[in-house]
């Protein structure tokens, strides 16, 4: 795929639709927590929306996405249905996991979201297994596994990249590098100049891209997806971005310099992308406002559905531990 290939207008608008749906979900979820309607730990992906939005438009429904506790952007981008998604965030019986997963562990197998882990780095070895199954069955499925810059320092990252290289697995290792591993700034915790550089150690392509640039992100993702689908093996994709709302909700980002945060917020990728779409003539202000309004209405419907849904019965504690009928 040539570097100069451009996403179509339809793809760009789809990326915008997905990214703004993620932002809407994040804003509303935080409002619900602040209003006391939900008590929950929450890891906001605000600022990182364009990465999964630009990847997902290259994926098929049957492709797998593995993500982490900071993962609602990845799940929404993969197309998780909103009502059971919000119900899961709220721990309701109608959630995708019957309320047993929660915000850190939302999965929806039917949407290609089989694993959302709360353990840093643990998704990478599992992604290899999903991809191994696709390889054995001879499907052209691709597995995308998302993780942060911090995860590139844990052993599982290195074991997984090496195995994927040796087995030539159809995996996209997507490092959403937001500059901070929990509270630790990149250079205080990571020896490599870039995460992408680490790919050299495994003999696979390592690609660094501006994750806040929808077009660049789409180009990098489509090349890596095409490579995996063609059976040419894995790619490590480092998407540089920024995390606006701390590690965990309630964290005031005191460890981030004020001017660094101010500059990042001033460069918020969503308004920038919006202005660019209009300036390039891809959409009018009104069209984009319509997309935002449609997102907001759909999400609000899901919130109402979730709030009206029951909590799981305590008998659920004894279910799904092992297969039904088997002794746990």
């Amino acid at each position, binding site marked *: 795929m040539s570097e100069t290939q451009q996403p179509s207008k339809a793809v760009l608008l789809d990326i915008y639709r997905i990214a703004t749906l993620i932002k809407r979900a994040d804003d509303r979820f935080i409002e619900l927590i602040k209003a006391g309607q939900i008590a929950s730990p929450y890891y906001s992906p605000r600022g990182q929306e364009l990465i999964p939005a630009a990847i997902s438009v290259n994926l098929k429904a049957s492709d*797998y996405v593995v993500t982490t506790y900071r993962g609602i952007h990845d799940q929404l981008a993969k197309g998780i249905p909103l009502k059971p998604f919000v119900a899961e965030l709220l721990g309701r019986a109608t*959630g*995708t*996991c*019957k*309320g*047993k*997963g929660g915000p850190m*562990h939302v*999965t*929806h*197998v*039917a949407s290609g979201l*089989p*694993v959302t*882990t*709360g*353990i840093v780095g*643990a998704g*990478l*070895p*599992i*992604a*290899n*297994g*999903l*991809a*191994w*199954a*696709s*390889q*054995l*069955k001879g499907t052209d499925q691709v*597995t995308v596994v998302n993780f942060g810059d911090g995860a590139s320092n844990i*052993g*599982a990252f290195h*074991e*997984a990249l*090496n*195995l994927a290289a*040796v*087995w030539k697995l159809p995996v996209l290792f997507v490092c959403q590098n937001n500059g901070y591993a929990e509270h630790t700034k990149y250079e205080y915790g990571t020896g490599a100049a870039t995460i992408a550089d680490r790919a050299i150690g495994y003999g696979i392509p390592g690609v660094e891209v501006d994750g806040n640039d929808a077009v660049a992100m789409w180009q990098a993702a489509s090349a890596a997806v095409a490579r995996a689908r063609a059976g040419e093996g894995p790619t490590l994709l480092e998407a540089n971005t920024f995390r606006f709302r701390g590690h965990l909700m309630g964290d005031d980002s005191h460890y981030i310099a004020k001017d660094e945060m101010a500059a990042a917020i001033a460069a918020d990728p969503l308004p920038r992308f919006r202005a660019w779409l209009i300036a390039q003539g891809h959409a009018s202000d009104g069209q984009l406002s319509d997309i935002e309004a449609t997102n907001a209405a759909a999400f609000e419907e899901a919130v109402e559905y979730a709030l009206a849904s029951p909590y799981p019965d305590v008998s659920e504690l004894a*279910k*799904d*531990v*092992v*297969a039904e009928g*088997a*002794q*746990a």
Partner: protein
Amino acid sequence: MSTAAKKMNSAQAINLALHDAMALDESVVVLGEDIADREGGGVFKCTAGLSTKFGTGRVKSTPIAEQAIVGAAVGGALAGLRPVAEIMLMNFTTVAMDQIVNHAAKLRFMTGGQTHVPLVIRTTTGAGFGTGGQHADYLEAWFAHTAGLKVVAPATPADAYGLMLSCIFDDDPCIFIENLPLYFVPGEAPEPGVRVPIGKARIVQEGSDITLISYSKTLHDVIGVAKELAKEGIAAEVIDLRTISPLDMDTILASARKTGRVVVAHEAQVDFGVGAEISARLHKELFGQLKAPVARVGAARSPVPFSKPLEAAFVPTRERILAAIRETLN
């Protein structure tokens, strides 16, 4: 010579079970360090011949990377495979505990039943070969303590074969504990295709005076002690647990009700171990009916030692098992 009279050791029985399962169902795959024939078919030859017969797509040697091995097994299981991952030695499972405990064991529950993880982790262990402190631990209690895992520990070739088939075709993750010295001990060959159910203990011999509960290699010492007791006119009932979790409490309780005296012997540490769990359950169910407290015999409270006399004293010797029995009888 009839099939039933044929002899086979546990390594051969496991190998046969893997062959049979792979022939039966193409979703069965095997992975681990050095397991393909190019690398020798496994350091203990349990996977010998599999890659030649079924191909290196389904039988994959891996780097020395236990997290990657178990992670690939978990992902494969989520995507419809039935992986059998070999973790060469049980101590090496510690390197993969996150994948086993946080993922394999929990994903069925955490996804609300959307997924399940039908994998087997084969691993071997046991003192006796001078492998020292990091190659011979029995860690079954750790796994049995985790909801969502099944833990089996066969003591005979036929049970190794039959339990392996059951574990492979079970829809939940199973920890399959093999014993290194037992690999080389011949026993009755399994009947082809006959599965031993998970969660069912076996009464090795009936008796009315005392119940002796064991599994894996220690079972053979317990059987030896029971034979000695018989010469004194003491009839011991010997139970081979075969499965550690879920525990076959029906069999254990029925025997304990009959004899009123129970000794549990295993090669793992005594403290916080399988014997403690059995003892607690028996005292809860039969408090006042037991004629003596449930006794436990296990390894010494130390890491597995190297030096021969230390290693011999470390394991639950027949002398220590016998002493616990005499104390329980009196």
